[in-house]
């Protein structure tokens, strides 16, 4: 039974104050809608509190130390000491500053803030519970709802985030001392970003990945400099294994993680025959499991939408097989006046995708002609070096029926890159052949995350290679590499030989 139930109403209810939800709420407020934002945990969501911002803070800070330590060839001799708890509390300050800012911005834009967990009771009301099951809950009626409940880290069998040596990304970003050794399960972008941070902090890092490569989905040429750098940092990789279980070591010195080969079960079930043909030597051996000793294990195998704790059924909102809420190009769900944005509304699960969708949902509710119609969604992996992509790959473009032309520029030919001591990687532009429309770009190298912005704009504007090549770029900058890649595609780069 519900105690102390109060019913109030709002034009626009936003559930979840991550980058999708708070942006939706602020935009709705700017459009003079009466808007209420409900958050159960912390303003800023995963991104500001446990994701994008904390990870980038630690990446940048460890790089400051790492770069100084490795600048002997520049005549710099340094042996920085890192106090991780100091670094983490600096990171927490940054987070507080930003989440405080979000709260202030919401209020300044007229957003009503509510703390609590929202669950749908029907298609026009939610219950907001303040602590657990209905205690102190209230009912809120809405004209429109925007679901922005985000995603949460997937757990794998036998690895519970409640157990002290088992970490999810959030926990890994708040350690107060540097582990001697760490097993990272999953070589996706979160796993790889954190593997680099800990390797730079001095941790012995081993990455286990089910597939036979890191950063699945990214092209080999983009990954090569990252893999090289990871190897240089001493990160070990075990591809084709899954983490099976862990146990405390008997001598109390840490844990032992057992990882099984991915095809192990199959091979065993098939009998030795198929495997035997390929690997005669192993014919009679069981495929071996790995045993890895470490202080901690970080599980970063992916994230899943938070769509199961909302009672979406009560509102009649459909989800797909992966639990993502189905939406159309105006961010609308199967129920016309309910919208979904951000991670809960599907891939790519990226903060800026969610913010864009949040703006669209708010604007559509306000009657504006907005839609999710981007040509180019950038994505960045903040590894060392960074990888950034936007728009189509060559393959995407060919699949879409384009004849393409490609231009590249290696950073080792960039004056600016050489002056920073960071010249691995390249810029690659894919364009349509006839008119030269820029269709996509990929960058691996210094400041890739920033350089990709110009190419995103180029794609959105329908700019051509000539437009990019004819725009004067400052010397000496890394952004000249973008211009040079465009010139290369046109067959007249200055600082590389053209094909």
């Amino acid at each position, binding site marked *: 039974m519900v105690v102390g139930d109060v019913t109030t109403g709002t034009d626009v209810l936003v559930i979840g104050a991550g980058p999708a939800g708070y942006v939706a709420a602020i935009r709705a407020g*700017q459009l003079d809608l009466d808007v209420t934002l409900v958050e159960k945990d912390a303003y800023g969501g995963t991104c500001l509190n446990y994701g994008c911002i904390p990870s980038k803070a630690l990446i940048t800070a460890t790089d400051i130390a790492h770069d100084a330590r490795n600048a002997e060839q520049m005549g710099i001799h340094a042996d920085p000491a890192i106090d991780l708890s100091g670094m983490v509390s600096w990171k927490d300050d940054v987070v507080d500053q930003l989440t405080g800012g979000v709260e202030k911005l919401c209020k300044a834009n007229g957003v009503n803030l509510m703390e609590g967990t929202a669950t749908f009771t029907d298609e026009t009301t939610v219950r907001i519970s303040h602590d657990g099951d209905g205690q102190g809950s209230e009912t809120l009626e809405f004209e429109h709802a925007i679901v922005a409940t985000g995603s949460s880290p997937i757990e794998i069998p036998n690895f519970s985030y409640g157990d002290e040596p088992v970490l999810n990304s959030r926990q890994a970003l708040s350690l107060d001392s540097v582990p001697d050794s760490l097993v990272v399960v999953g070589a996706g972008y979160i796993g790889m970003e954190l593997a680099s941070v800990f390797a730079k902090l001095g941790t012995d890092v081993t990455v286990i990945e089910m597939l036979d490569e890191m950063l699945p989905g990214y092209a080999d040429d983009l990954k090569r400099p990252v893999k090289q750098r990871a190897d240089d940092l001493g990160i070990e990789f075990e591809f084709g294994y899954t983490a099976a279980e862990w146990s405390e070591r008997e001598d109390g010195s840490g844990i032992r993680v057992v990882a099984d080969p991915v095809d192990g079960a199959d091979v065993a079930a098939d009998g030795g025959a198929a495997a035997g043909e390929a690997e005669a030597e192993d014919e009679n051996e069981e495929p071996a499991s790995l045993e890895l000793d470490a202080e901690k294990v970080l599980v970063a195998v992916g994230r899943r939408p938070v769509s199961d704790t909302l009672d979406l059924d009560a509102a009649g909102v459909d989800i797909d097989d992966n639990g993502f809420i189905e939406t159309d190009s105006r961010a609308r769900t199967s129920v016309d006046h309910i919208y979904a944005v951000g991670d809960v509304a599907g891939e790519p699960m990226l903060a800026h995708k969610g913010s864009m969708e949040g703006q669209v949902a708010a604007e559509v509710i306000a009657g504006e002609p907005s*839609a999710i119609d981007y040509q180019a969604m950038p994505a960045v992996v903040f590894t060392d070096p960074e990888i950034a992509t936007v728009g189509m790959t060559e393959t995407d473009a060919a699949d879409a029926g384009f004849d393409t032309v490609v231009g590249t520029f290696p950073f080792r030919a960039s004056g600016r890159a050489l002056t920073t001591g960071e010249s691995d990687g390249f810029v690659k532009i894919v364009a349509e052949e*006839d*008119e*030269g429309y820029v269709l996509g770009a990929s960058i691996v190298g210094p400041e890739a995350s920033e350089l990709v912005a110009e190419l995103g704009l180029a794609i*959105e504007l*329908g700019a*051509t290679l*000539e437009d990019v090549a004819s725009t004067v770029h400052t010397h000496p900058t890394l952004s000249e590499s973008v211009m040079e890649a465009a010139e290369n595609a046109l067959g007249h780069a200055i600082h590389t030989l053209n094909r």
Partner: protein
Amino acid sequence: TPDDRIFAPPRVRRMARDEGIDLSQLRGSGPGGRITAADVQAAAGTAPSGTAQAAAGADEGAAAETTADATEGAPAADSSSGTETAAGSSGQTATATQTQPPTQVD
């Protein structure tokens, strides 16, 4: 070029949605066939009235000229892409302003 890919800037795409114009049915007059705001307005029959257009055109022309003059003394360009784009999309002033919902929030 595959038909389903539209080459038009975000502002033009939004304008088309507002006017209910299907961009894949338009032929662009911009560089390389890029669809401009003027193309959308022509298709929607919402091109600015004679007076408005003339006024806008005049303003724009003057503006474009001054732009070129102001750029470091470089003489006005014969084939400047920037100038062309600005001039090419000139006729849209009035409509764009009208169709733009008020976004100023104080």
